């Protein structure tokens, strides 16, 4: 992460087409996007604008149809499914709108999950998971299952799970979408702190300008393209 010359994320003329022939739907139509290490970027745009598709590609869950995605200088498009999985487990953390925790599984076990796949020994797993839970203010809640936690707490467990591997990039898909204002602010405070204190790069999709305001930069999507910054200025003024 100390090499600032190579951006952590770089999209070059990325397109993504779903389906074939007449049924083909172009979700991304040539996206260029550069995110430097340590940035906190909010992604906004109406539904159908391609931001979710873009997030899937950034998360290495999907690959571009054309164009290239460089993650820390590595071309993701040429990696196999398993190689992308390994990339995800080491460098990426995910936070979802619906939390996506394993039911009937304790907070500690949920947070430990990525470490299990990395093959960390049990003691290391426990210790790191506890540290991660402490970092999101959930010390003492280790043995509660998602059903016993509030929405805000569940999302914090999800954040702990995302950061337990000490990833380079945290991808958050509407992390506050299901939460009230007070809980949303708690979550945003945690994300801001992680970005500021630990230098984790954060890319966050959101519908709410209030939440986007926490980010240092906002990227707007429209019709499968990133809206150039001068146009946004213009729109904001209007």
């Amino acid at each position, binding site marked *: 992460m100390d090499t600032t010359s190579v951006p952590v994320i770089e999209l070059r003329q990325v397109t993504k087409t779903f389906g074939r022939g007449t049924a083909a739907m172009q979700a991304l139509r040539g996206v260029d996007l550069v995110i430097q290490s340590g940035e906190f970027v909010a992604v906004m745009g109406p539904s159908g604008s391609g931001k979710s598709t873009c997030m*899937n590609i950034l*998360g290495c*869950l*999907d690959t571009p149809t054309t164009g290239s995605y460089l993650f820390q200088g590595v071309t993701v498009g040429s990696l196999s*499914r*398993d190689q992308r*999985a*390994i990339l*995800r*487990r*080491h460098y*990426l953390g*995910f936070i*979802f709108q619906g939390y*996506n*925790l*394993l*039911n*009937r599984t304790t907070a500690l076990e949920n947070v430990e*999950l*990525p470490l*299990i*796949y*990395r*093959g960390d020994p049990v003691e290391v797993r426990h210790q790191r998971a506890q540290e991660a839970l402490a970092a999101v203010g959930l010390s003492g809640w280790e043995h509660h299952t998602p059903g016993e936690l509030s929405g805000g707490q569940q999302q914090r467990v999800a954040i702990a*799970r995302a950061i337990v591997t000490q990833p380079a990039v945290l991808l958050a898909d509407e992390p506050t979408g299901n939460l009230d204002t007070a809980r949303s602010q708690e979550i945003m405070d945690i994300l801001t702190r992680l970005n500021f204190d630990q230098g984790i790069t954060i890319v966050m999709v959101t519908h709410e300008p209030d939440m986007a305001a926490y980010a240092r930069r906002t990227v707007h999507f429209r019709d499968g393209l990133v809206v150039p910054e001068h146009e946004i200025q213009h729109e904001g003024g209007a």
Partner: protein
Amino acid sequence: MLWNALLLAMREIRRNVLRSFLTILGIVIGVAAVIIMVTLGGGATVQVTQQIASLGSNLLIISPGKRMGPGQTVGAAPFSVDDTVALARDIPQLVAVAPTTSRSMTVVYGNANWSTQITGSTDDYFKARNWVAKSGRLFTDSEQRAGAAACVIGQTVRQKLFGNQDPIGARIRLQKIACEVIGLLESKGQSTMGTDQDDLVIIPLRAFQRRIAGNQDVNIIQVSVRDGVSTTRVQQDIEHLMRERRHLSENEENNFNVMDMKEITKMLTATTQVLTALLGAVAAVSLLVGGIGIMNIMLVSVTERTREIGIRLAIGALEREVLLQFLVEAAVLSSFGGLVGIVLALAASVGLASVLNVPFVFNAGIVVIAFVFSAAVGLVFGYFPAKKAAQLDPIEALRHE
């Protein structure tokens, strides 16, 4: 990685105890059925083998009539004591030649009476049948020559007439003769045909002929062939000699029959084994059906847990790790079913063996095979659902409700 998959599988099974139990029921029944069939079949085979030994090794039975069994020709002349003398003299491979003649009669002792088979024979009878006295003694030469009123009884007769008393020296009544019990035979149990071999009274042949039958006939001759000699060869020799003695011309059929008891028991053993194999195979089919049940539930489980699989894949699980997780779960389920089946089968086998009156023979081989097979069934039938889980698209899976 395997250890984690194992822990995960155990946790998943614990979460759905009832469903897991129902899933493995097919395997439990399949494994139990295979083991019970093979164990009982093995017991039956052992029983037959024991009966071969109890019959006396290399026993041949010579009876008048054209065919064995119910088709005995009426009018075929019985044998005589001279025939037995000739057999003993001319066929050196025989170690014992016992002329026998029997009749069903009621024996009386005190207030007790019991209908049994009275057989007149010689000491060779015990030799041919490989039978020894448990207490008392067998006949002396002078008793045999004189046709003394002495008898040797089987365990069943002792129990019916004497209860737990010592029968030696007591006098039992056979029609008009009062007969001293001089010996009690060892128990032989049931014969291959299911008759009680201990239900008999033996008296000297001469006593039987003179006091009961009133003639010099010998109905059946039992002979024992020396160990290591082919019974088939001796059987031919006997047939040859008897044809000569009974003055049969070349184009006449035998009017007697030589039965090789060993051949019959061998045949019965073979039949038992074939039946065991057949029943085992039928039981194995139920194991297969159990495997399909596991596949069903695993497919349902994969669909139910699509979101979980999506989460695992998103946070960096490899395809093969998800595959392993579901495969191990299926294998753990089915081998657990196997274990339960084994326990059930052993308990049932012990019970059934005592009810059916066959010895319980623990067959470690079939237990191991059944267990390995049940685990393999899990792996084979778990593979398809596991593959399906592993190949899910994480994006789609995460969207799954």
